[in-house]
Protein backbone atom coordinates (compact mmCIF):
# COMPACT_ATOMS: atom_id res chain seq x y z
CA UNK A 1 0.00 0.00 0.00
CA UNK A 2 2.95 2.27 -0.62
CA UNK A 3 2.01 5.58 -2.15
CA UNK A 4 2.80 5.59 -5.86
CA UNK A 5 4.87 8.72 -5.61
CA UNK A 6 6.15 9.36 -2.07
CA UNK A 7 5.22 12.76 -0.66
CA UNK A 8 8.02 14.08 1.51
CA UNK A 9 6.79 15.95 4.57
CA UNK A 10 10.14 16.31 6.36
CA UNK A 11 12.78 17.04 3.76
CA UNK A 12 15.77 17.12 6.13
CA UNK A 13 15.19 13.58 7.38
CA UNK A 14 13.35 12.38 4.25
CA UNK A 15 10.19 11.28 6.01
CA UNK A 16 7.12 10.63 3.83
CA UNK A 17 3.45 11.30 4.43
CA UNK A 18 2.86 7.57 4.55
CA UNK A 19 5.45 7.07 7.31
CA UNK A 20 3.81 9.80 9.38
CA UNK A 21 0.37 8.25 8.86
CA UNK A 22 1.80 4.95 10.07
CA UNK A 23 3.29 6.59 13.18
CA UNK A 24 -0.10 8.10 14.03
CA UNK A 25 -1.76 4.71 13.48
CA UNK A 26 0.85 3.23 15.85
CA UNK A 27 -0.26 5.56 18.64
CA UNK A 28 1.56 8.87 18.15
CA UNK A 29 -0.62 11.72 19.40
CA UNK A 30 2.00 14.46 19.64
CA UNK A 31 4.87 15.83 17.59
CA UNK A 32 7.19 13.99 19.99
CA UNK A 33 5.37 10.72 19.31
CA UNK A 34 5.85 11.22 15.55
CA UNK A 35 9.48 12.28 16.11
CA UNK A 36 10.30 9.16 18.14
CA UNK A 37 8.86 6.91 15.46
CA UNK A 38 10.06 8.62 12.27
CA UNK A 39 12.78 11.22 13.06
CA UNK A 40 10.64 13.86 11.33
CA UNK A 41 11.45 17.42 12.54
CA UNK A 42 14.84 16.29 13.85
CA UNK A 43 17.01 17.50 10.98
CA UNK A 44 18.96 20.66 10.37
CA UNK A 45 15.92 22.94 10.12
CA UNK A 46 14.28 21.47 13.25
CA UNK A 47 10.80 21.19 11.82
CA UNK A 48 10.43 24.69 10.42
CA UNK A 49 8.58 23.42 7.36
CA UNK A 50 7.19 20.07 8.37
CA UNK A 51 6.02 20.69 11.92
CA UNK A 52 2.87 22.52 10.85
CA UNK A 53 2.10 19.86 8.25
CA UNK A 54 2.50 17.12 10.86
CA UNK A 55 0.38 19.04 13.35
CA UNK A 56 -2.33 19.25 10.72
CA UNK A 57 -2.12 15.49 10.08
CA UNK A 58 -2.30 14.81 13.82
CA UNK A 59 -5.33 17.09 14.17
CA UNK A 60 -7.11 15.38 11.26
CA UNK A 61 -6.39 11.86 12.44
CA UNK A 62 -7.23 12.36 16.10
CA UNK A 63 -9.64 14.24 18.32
CA UNK A 64 -6.87 16.50 19.59
CA UNK A 65 -8.00 20.11 19.36
CA UNK A 66 -4.85 21.83 20.48
CA UNK A 67 -1.26 20.63 20.66
CA UNK A 68 1.02 21.80 23.40
CA UNK A 69 4.00 23.62 21.95
CA UNK A 70 6.78 21.09 21.59
CA UNK A 71 9.64 23.34 20.66
CA UNK A 72 12.40 24.46 22.98
CA UNK A 73 15.47 26.58 22.62
CA UNK A 74 17.87 26.88 20.84
CA UNK A 75 15.62 28.27 18.13
CA UNK A 76 18.31 28.30 15.51
CA UNK A 77 21.51 26.49 14.67
CA UNK A 78 24.43 27.99 16.53
CA UNK A 79 28.13 27.25 16.64
CA UNK A 80 29.36 25.70 19.89
CA UNK A 81 32.19 28.22 20.11
CA UNK A 82 29.72 31.11 20.10
CA UNK A 83 27.75 29.65 23.01
CA UNK A 84 30.88 29.03 25.05
CA UNK A 85 32.22 32.55 24.47
CA UNK A 86 28.74 33.99 24.96
CA UNK A 87 28.51 36.65 27.63
CA UNK A 88 32.22 36.49 28.46
CA UNK A 89 33.13 37.99 25.07
Amino acid at each position, binding site marked *: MAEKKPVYICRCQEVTREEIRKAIADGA*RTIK*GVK*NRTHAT*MGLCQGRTCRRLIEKMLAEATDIKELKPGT*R*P*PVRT*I*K*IEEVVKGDDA
Partner: protein
Amino acid sequence: MKKTSEIVIIGGGVIGTSTAYYLTKRGKEVVLFEKNDLASGASGACDQDIILQSKNPGIHLQLAMKSAEIYKTLEAELEHPIEYENTGGMILIETEEELEIMRDFVKRQQQVGLEVEILDLKQARELQPGLSRHLVGSTYSPQDAHVNSMELTLGFAKAARKQGARIMLHTEVVGIKQRNGRVQGVVTSRGDVDCEIVINCAGAWAPKIAEMIGLTIPIKPRRGQIIVTEEVAPYVMGDVLSARYIVAKYNPEILENSSDPGIKLGVGLSLSQTQKGNILIGATREFVGYNTDVTRTGLKEILKNATRLVPGLKGMNIIRMFAGLRPYTPDGLPIIGPVEGIEGFFVAAGHEGDGIALSPVTGKIVSDLIVDGKTFIDVSRLALERFAKNNKKA
Protein backbone atom coordinates in the same frame (compact mmCIF):
# COMPACT_ATOMS: atom_id res chain seq x y z
CA MET B 1 -11.41 -2.96 27.14
CA LYS B 2 -11.08 -6.45 28.64
CA LYS B 3 -11.82 -6.32 32.37
CA THR B 4 -9.22 -8.79 33.66
CA SER B 5 -5.55 -9.57 33.23
CA GLU B 6 -3.13 -11.71 35.18
CA ILE B 7 -0.61 -8.86 35.28
CA VAL B 8 -0.82 -5.08 34.91
CA ILE B 9 2.30 -3.07 34.06
CA ILE B 10 2.26 0.67 34.66
CA GLY B 11 4.58 2.69 32.42
CA GLY B 12 5.41 2.53 28.70
CA GLY B 13 9.08 3.38 28.90
CA VAL B 14 11.96 1.06 28.27
CA ILE B 15 11.55 -0.76 31.61
CA GLY B 16 7.79 -1.31 31.29
CA THR B 17 7.97 -2.52 27.69
CA SER B 18 10.94 -4.78 28.44
CA THR B 19 9.06 -6.28 31.38
CA ALA B 20 5.99 -6.79 29.15
CA TYR B 21 8.19 -8.51 26.57
CA TYR B 22 9.86 -10.93 29.02
CA LEU B 23 6.62 -11.77 30.84
CA THR B 24 4.69 -12.55 27.64
CA LYS B 25 7.69 -14.57 26.47
CA ARG B 26 7.10 -16.74 29.54
CA GLY B 27 3.43 -17.10 28.61
CA LYS B 28 1.96 -14.58 31.05
CA GLU B 29 -1.14 -12.47 30.34
CA VAL B 30 -0.12 -8.81 30.43
CA VAL B 31 -1.74 -5.45 29.93
CA LEU B 32 0.45 -2.34 29.98
CA PHE B 33 -0.96 1.12 30.75
CA GLU B 34 0.85 4.27 29.65
CA LYS B 35 -0.66 7.67 30.35
CA ASN B 36 1.06 9.33 27.38
CA ASP B 37 2.93 7.46 24.67
CA LEU B 38 5.70 4.88 24.39
CA ALA B 39 9.08 6.43 25.32
CA SER B 40 7.40 9.76 26.10
CA GLY B 41 9.36 10.23 29.34
CA ALA B 42 13.04 9.60 30.05
CA SER B 43 13.31 6.72 27.55
CA GLY B 44 12.82 9.21 24.73
CA ALA B 45 14.96 11.97 26.24
CA CYS B 46 18.32 10.42 27.00
CA ASP B 47 21.61 9.54 25.38
CA GLN B 48 22.28 6.20 23.72
CA ASP B 49 25.00 4.75 25.89
CA ILE B 50 25.23 1.24 27.28
CA ILE B 51 28.22 1.74 29.52
CA LEU B 52 29.61 -1.02 31.66
CA GLN B 53 32.67 0.74 33.00
CA SER B 54 30.72 3.50 34.76
CA LYS B 55 29.18 0.91 37.09
CA ASN B 56 30.43 0.18 40.55
CA PRO B 57 31.88 -3.34 40.79
CA GLY B 58 29.31 -5.44 42.62
CA ILE B 59 25.68 -6.04 41.81
CA HIS B 60 25.45 -2.93 39.63
CA LEU B 61 28.19 -4.11 37.28
CA GLN B 62 26.87 -7.67 37.42
CA LEU B 63 23.49 -6.46 36.18
CA ALA B 64 25.12 -4.40 33.42
CA MET B 65 27.26 -7.32 32.25
CA LYS B 66 24.25 -9.64 32.09
CA SER B 67 22.35 -6.96 30.15
CA ALA B 68 25.29 -6.58 27.74
CA GLU B 69 25.18 -10.30 27.06
CA ILE B 70 21.44 -10.11 26.27
CA TYR B 71 21.97 -7.07 24.00
CA LYS B 72 24.19 -9.06 21.62
CA THR B 73 21.23 -11.03 20.26
CA LEU B 74 18.39 -8.66 21.17
CA GLU B 75 17.92 -7.08 17.76
CA ALA B 76 17.39 -10.50 16.13
CA GLU B 77 15.14 -11.57 18.99
CA LEU B 78 12.90 -8.49 18.80
CA GLU B 79 12.99 -8.45 14.98
CA HIS B 80 13.28 -4.67 15.14
CA PRO B 81 16.24 -2.41 14.24
CA ILE B 82 17.44 -1.04 17.59
CA GLU B 83 20.76 0.31 16.23
CA TYR B 84 22.81 -1.65 18.75
CA GLU B 85 26.53 -1.21 18.17
CA ASN B 86 29.45 -2.41 20.26
CA THR B 87 31.57 0.73 20.01
CA GLY B 88 33.76 0.70 23.10
CA GLY B 89 34.07 3.65 25.42
CA MET B 90 36.43 5.80 27.44
CA ILE B 91 36.39 7.90 30.60
CA LEU B 92 38.56 11.01 30.41
CA ILE B 93 40.82 11.69 33.39
CA GLU B 94 41.87 15.26 34.17
CA THR B 95 43.93 15.17 37.33
CA GLU B 96 46.34 12.88 39.21
CA GLU B 97 43.73 12.68 41.98
CA GLU B 98 41.08 11.38 39.55
CA LEU B 99 43.67 9.01 38.09
CA GLU B 100 44.18 7.42 41.51
CA ILE B 101 40.43 6.96 41.98
CA MET B 102 40.01 5.53 38.47
CA ARG B 103 42.98 3.15 38.89
CA ASP B 104 41.26 1.65 41.89
CA PHE B 105 37.86 1.62 40.12
CA VAL B 106 39.37 -0.11 37.05
CA LYS B 107 41.27 -2.66 39.15
CA ARG B 108 38.11 -3.70 40.97
CA GLN B 109 36.23 -3.93 37.67
CA GLN B 110 38.97 -6.10 36.14
CA GLN B 111 38.70 -8.45 39.10
CA VAL B 112 35.09 -9.24 38.20
CA GLY B 113 35.94 -9.83 34.56
CA LEU B 114 35.35 -6.49 32.83
CA GLU B 115 37.75 -5.72 29.97
CA VAL B 116 38.98 -2.26 30.92
CA GLU B 117 42.37 -0.54 31.07
CA ILE B 118 44.02 2.83 31.72
CA LEU B 119 45.52 4.71 28.76
CA ASP B 120 48.02 7.57 28.81
CA LEU B 121 47.15 10.78 26.96
CA LYS B 122 48.96 9.76 23.76
CA GLN B 123 47.03 6.49 23.54
CA ALA B 124 43.79 8.26 24.42
CA ARG B 125 44.32 10.84 21.67
CA GLU B 126 44.91 8.10 19.12
CA LEU B 127 41.51 6.66 20.01
CA GLN B 128 39.63 9.96 20.18
CA PRO B 129 40.75 13.02 18.21
CA GLY B 130 40.29 16.53 19.54
CA LEU B 131 41.07 15.78 23.20
CA SER B 132 42.56 18.55 25.32
CA ARG B 133 46.28 18.34 26.12
CA HIS B 134 45.66 19.06 29.79
CA LEU B 135 44.18 15.57 30.27
CA VAL B 136 46.19 12.95 32.15
CA GLY B 137 44.75 10.03 30.21
CA SER B 138 41.62 7.93 30.10
CA THR B 139 40.19 4.51 30.70
CA TYR B 140 39.16 2.34 27.79
CA SER B 141 36.79 -0.61 27.59
CA PRO B 142 35.90 -2.39 24.34
CA GLN B 143 32.67 -3.63 25.95
CA ASP B 144 30.73 -0.34 26.00
CA ALA B 145 28.01 0.00 23.37
CA HIS B 146 25.22 2.12 21.89
CA VAL B 147 21.54 1.60 21.26
CA ASN B 148 18.72 3.82 20.01
CA SER B 149 16.55 4.09 23.13
CA MET B 150 13.39 5.02 21.25
CA GLU B 151 13.70 2.15 18.78
CA LEU B 152 14.50 -0.14 21.71
CA THR B 153 11.28 0.84 23.53
CA LEU B 154 9.22 0.54 20.33
CA GLY B 155 10.92 -2.81 19.61
CA PHE B 156 10.15 -4.25 23.05
CA ALA B 157 6.53 -3.06 22.71
CA LYS B 158 6.12 -4.50 19.22
CA ALA B 159 7.58 -7.88 20.23
CA ALA B 160 5.49 -7.94 23.43
CA ARG B 161 2.33 -7.26 21.39
CA LYS B 162 3.19 -10.13 19.05
CA GLN B 163 3.37 -12.37 22.11
CA GLY B 164 -0.07 -11.25 23.20
CA ALA B 165 0.55 -8.21 25.43
CA ARG B 166 -2.12 -5.52 25.30
CA ILE B 167 -0.52 -2.08 25.30
CA MET B 168 -2.91 0.70 26.20
CA LEU B 169 -1.46 4.08 25.33
CA HIS B 170 -2.94 7.40 26.48
CA THR B 171 -4.57 5.51 29.35
CA GLU B 172 -3.76 6.69 32.85
CA VAL B 173 -3.81 4.54 35.96
CA VAL B 174 -5.54 6.64 38.62
CA GLY B 175 -5.94 4.09 41.40
CA ILE B 176 -4.86 0.68 42.62
CA LYS B 177 -7.35 -1.60 44.36
CA GLN B 178 -6.26 -3.82 47.23
CA ARG B 179 -7.96 -6.01 49.82
CA ASN B 180 -6.42 -7.68 52.89
CA GLY B 181 -2.91 -6.73 51.83
CA ARG B 182 -3.39 -8.12 48.30
CA VAL B 183 -3.50 -6.29 45.00
CA GLN B 184 -6.93 -6.64 43.36
CA GLY B 185 -6.73 -4.48 40.26
CA VAL B 186 -6.28 -0.99 38.85
CA VAL B 187 -8.57 1.92 38.08
CA THR B 188 -7.74 3.64 34.79
CA SER B 189 -9.05 6.58 32.79
CA ARG B 190 -10.73 3.98 30.55
CA GLY B 191 -12.21 1.71 33.21
CA ASP B 192 -11.15 -0.88 35.78
CA VAL B 193 -9.08 -4.01 35.28
CA ASP B 194 -8.89 -6.81 37.84
CA CYS B 195 -5.48 -8.44 38.19
CA GLU B 196 -3.26 -10.45 40.53
CA ILE B 197 -0.04 -8.53 39.98
CA VAL B 198 0.74 -4.85 39.44
CA ILE B 199 4.25 -3.81 38.36
CA ASN B 200 5.23 -0.20 38.87
CA CYS B 201 7.56 0.69 35.96
CA ALA B 202 6.81 4.40 36.02
CA GLY B 203 10.40 5.65 36.33
CA ALA B 204 10.55 9.12 37.83
CA TRP B 205 6.78 8.93 38.32
CA ALA B 206 6.98 5.66 40.29
CA PRO B 207 6.51 7.43 43.67
CA LYS B 208 3.18 8.84 42.44
CA ILE B 209 1.97 5.36 41.50
CA ALA B 210 3.18 3.95 44.83
CA GLU B 211 1.28 6.67 46.73
CA MET B 212 -1.94 5.16 45.36
CA ILE B 213 -1.46 2.25 47.74
CA GLY B 214 0.07 4.25 50.54
CA LEU B 215 3.65 3.32 49.77
CA THR B 216 6.65 5.65 49.87
CA ILE B 217 9.38 5.11 47.29
CA PRO B 218 12.52 7.26 47.63
CA ILE B 219 12.84 7.99 43.89
CA LYS B 220 13.35 11.61 42.87
CA PRO B 221 13.25 13.05 39.34
CA ARG B 222 16.72 14.26 38.33
CA ARG B 223 16.83 16.38 35.20
CA GLY B 224 19.42 15.63 32.53
CA GLN B 225 19.83 18.19 29.76
CA ILE B 226 21.45 17.03 26.52
CA ILE B 227 22.53 18.96 23.43
CA VAL B 228 22.47 17.69 19.85
CA THR B 229 24.80 18.81 17.04
CA GLU B 230 24.15 18.82 13.33
CA GLU B 231 24.99 15.60 11.48
CA VAL B 232 28.76 15.43 11.05
CA ALA B 233 31.25 12.85 9.74
CA PRO B 234 32.22 10.09 12.23
CA TYR B 235 34.04 11.87 15.07
CA VAL B 236 33.26 10.36 18.46
CA MET B 237 34.89 6.94 19.00
CA GLY B 238 32.09 5.48 21.10
CA ASP B 239 30.94 6.57 24.52
CA VAL B 240 33.15 9.28 25.97
CA LEU B 241 32.58 10.23 29.62
CA SER B 242 34.59 12.23 32.10
CA ALA B 243 35.72 10.97 35.48
CA ARG B 244 33.78 13.89 36.93
CA TYR B 245 30.62 12.25 35.53
CA ILE B 246 31.30 9.28 37.78
CA VAL B 247 31.83 11.61 40.73
CA ALA B 248 28.59 13.45 39.92
CA LYS B 249 26.75 10.19 39.79
CA TYR B 250 27.80 8.75 43.11
CA ASN B 251 28.35 11.91 45.19
CA PRO B 252 25.46 14.35 44.68
CA GLU B 253 26.23 16.24 47.92
CA ILE B 254 29.67 17.33 46.68
CA LEU B 255 27.97 18.95 43.72
CA GLU B 256 25.32 20.84 45.58
CA ASN B 257 27.84 22.42 47.92
CA SER B 258 29.96 23.79 45.10
CA SER B 259 29.81 27.40 43.94
CA ASP B 260 30.90 26.60 40.38
CA PRO B 261 27.71 26.81 38.24
CA GLY B 262 28.79 23.82 36.12
CA ILE B 263 29.52 21.62 39.11
CA LYS B 264 26.34 22.77 40.81
CA LEU B 265 24.31 21.58 37.82
CA GLY B 266 26.05 18.22 38.08
CA VAL B 267 27.60 18.67 34.64
CA GLY B 268 29.70 15.70 33.61
CA LEU B 269 30.73 14.92 30.06
CA SER B 270 28.84 12.30 28.14
CA LEU B 271 29.59 12.26 24.43
CA SER B 272 28.41 9.92 21.71
CA GLN B 273 27.43 10.00 18.06
CA THR B 274 24.27 8.58 16.50
CA GLN B 275 24.28 6.47 13.35
CA LYS B 276 22.94 9.49 11.46
CA GLY B 277 25.91 11.54 12.62
CA ASN B 278 24.47 13.80 15.33
CA ILE B 279 26.71 14.13 18.36
CA LEU B 280 24.89 14.02 21.71
CA ILE B 281 26.59 16.18 24.31
CA GLY B 282 25.56 15.77 27.92
CA ALA B 283 24.67 16.24 30.60
CA THR B 284 23.38 17.91 33.73
CA ARG B 285 22.11 16.14 36.86
CA GLU B 286 19.71 18.52 38.61
CA PHE B 287 16.96 18.22 41.18
CA VAL B 288 14.24 20.56 39.89
CA GLY B 289 11.10 18.49 40.44
CA TYR B 290 9.22 17.44 37.32
CA ASN B 291 10.42 20.38 35.26
CA THR B 292 11.71 19.28 31.82
CA ASP B 293 12.66 22.73 30.51
CA VAL B 294 16.07 23.27 29.02
CA THR B 295 17.99 26.21 30.43
CA ARG B 296 20.46 28.77 29.18
CA THR B 297 22.83 27.99 32.05
CA GLY B 298 22.55 24.30 31.25
CA LEU B 299 23.37 24.92 27.60
CA LYS B 300 26.39 27.02 28.41
CA GLU B 301 27.81 24.88 31.20
CA ILE B 302 27.46 21.63 29.24
CA LEU B 303 29.26 23.12 26.25
CA LYS B 304 31.92 24.82 28.40
CA ASN B 305 32.69 21.49 30.03
CA ALA B 306 32.63 19.58 26.73
CA THR B 307 34.94 21.98 24.90
CA ARG B 308 37.31 22.15 27.87
CA LEU B 309 37.80 18.38 27.56
CA VAL B 310 37.34 18.04 23.80
CA PRO B 311 38.23 21.39 22.17
CA GLY B 312 37.76 19.72 18.79
CA LEU B 313 33.99 20.19 19.17
CA LYS B 314 34.16 24.00 19.03
CA GLY B 315 33.57 24.38 15.30
CA MET B 316 30.44 22.25 15.22
CA ASN B 317 26.89 23.58 15.20
CA ILE B 318 24.21 22.59 17.66
CA ILE B 319 20.64 22.19 16.42
CA ARG B 320 18.62 21.04 19.39
CA MET B 321 18.53 20.51 23.12
CA PHE B 322 16.29 18.38 25.32
CA ALA B 323 15.85 17.25 28.90
CA GLY B 324 14.63 14.05 30.53
CA LEU B 325 13.88 13.07 34.12
CA ARG B 326 16.13 10.28 35.39
CA PRO B 327 14.65 8.33 38.30
CA TYR B 328 17.25 8.89 41.03
CA THR B 329 17.56 6.65 44.09
CA PRO B 330 19.65 7.53 47.18
CA ASP B 331 22.10 4.65 46.67
CA GLY B 332 22.33 4.75 42.87
CA LEU B 333 20.83 1.28 42.48
CA PRO B 334 17.45 0.53 40.91
CA ILE B 335 14.54 -0.85 42.92
CA ILE B 336 13.52 -4.23 41.51
CA GLY B 337 11.29 -6.85 43.08
CA PRO B 338 8.15 -7.54 45.09
CA VAL B 339 7.15 -5.22 47.93
CA GLU B 340 6.81 -6.70 51.42
CA GLY B 341 3.35 -6.39 52.93
CA ILE B 342 1.44 -5.84 49.66
CA GLU B 343 1.03 -9.19 47.97
CA GLY B 344 1.21 -8.86 44.18
CA PHE B 345 2.82 -5.40 44.04
CA PHE B 346 6.20 -5.16 42.29
CA VAL B 347 8.52 -2.25 41.58
CA ALA B 348 10.95 -1.99 38.66
CA ALA B 349 12.11 1.62 38.64
CA GLY B 350 14.82 3.99 39.87
CA HIS B 351 17.55 3.26 37.31
CA GLU B 352 18.57 6.93 37.06
CA GLY B 353 20.83 7.11 33.97
CA ASP B 354 21.16 3.35 33.60
CA GLY B 355 17.64 2.50 32.45
CA ILE B 356 18.59 1.88 28.85
CA ALA B 357 21.65 -0.19 29.77
CA LEU B 358 19.75 -2.23 32.35
CA SER B 359 16.38 -2.58 30.60
CA PRO B 360 16.85 -6.12 29.23
CA VAL B 361 18.15 -7.51 32.51
CA THR B 362 15.44 -5.74 34.53
CA GLY B 363 12.64 -7.22 32.41
CA LYS B 364 14.25 -10.62 32.66
CA ILE B 365 14.63 -10.44 36.45
CA VAL B 366 11.03 -9.34 37.02
CA SER B 367 9.70 -12.12 34.77
CA ASP B 368 11.95 -14.71 36.48
CA LEU B 369 10.78 -13.57 39.93
CA ILE B 370 7.13 -13.77 38.93
CA VAL B 371 7.33 -17.07 37.05
CA ASP B 372 10.04 -18.96 38.99
CA GLY B 373 10.24 -17.05 42.27
CA LYS B 374 14.00 -16.59 41.74
CA THR B 375 16.48 -15.30 39.15
CA PHE B 376 20.14 -15.77 38.13
CA ILE B 377 21.53 -13.74 41.06
CA ASP B 378 20.38 -12.78 44.53
CA VAL B 379 18.44 -9.56 43.99
CA SER B 380 17.35 -9.00 47.60
CA ARG B 381 19.76 -6.03 47.67
CA LEU B 382 17.56 -4.33 45.08
CA ALA B 383 14.39 -4.62 47.16
CA LEU B 384 12.55 -1.49 48.27
CA GLU B 385 12.93 -2.62 51.90
CA ARG B 386 16.65 -1.74 51.89
CA PHE B 387 15.72 1.90 52.40
CA ALA B 388 13.45 1.16 55.35
CA LYS B 389 16.30 -0.75 57.03
CA ASN B 390 18.70 2.14 56.50
CA ASN B 391 16.19 4.52 58.01
CA LYS B 392 15.94 2.42 61.16
CA LYS B 393 19.72 2.33 61.59
CA ALA B 394 19.93 6.09 61.22
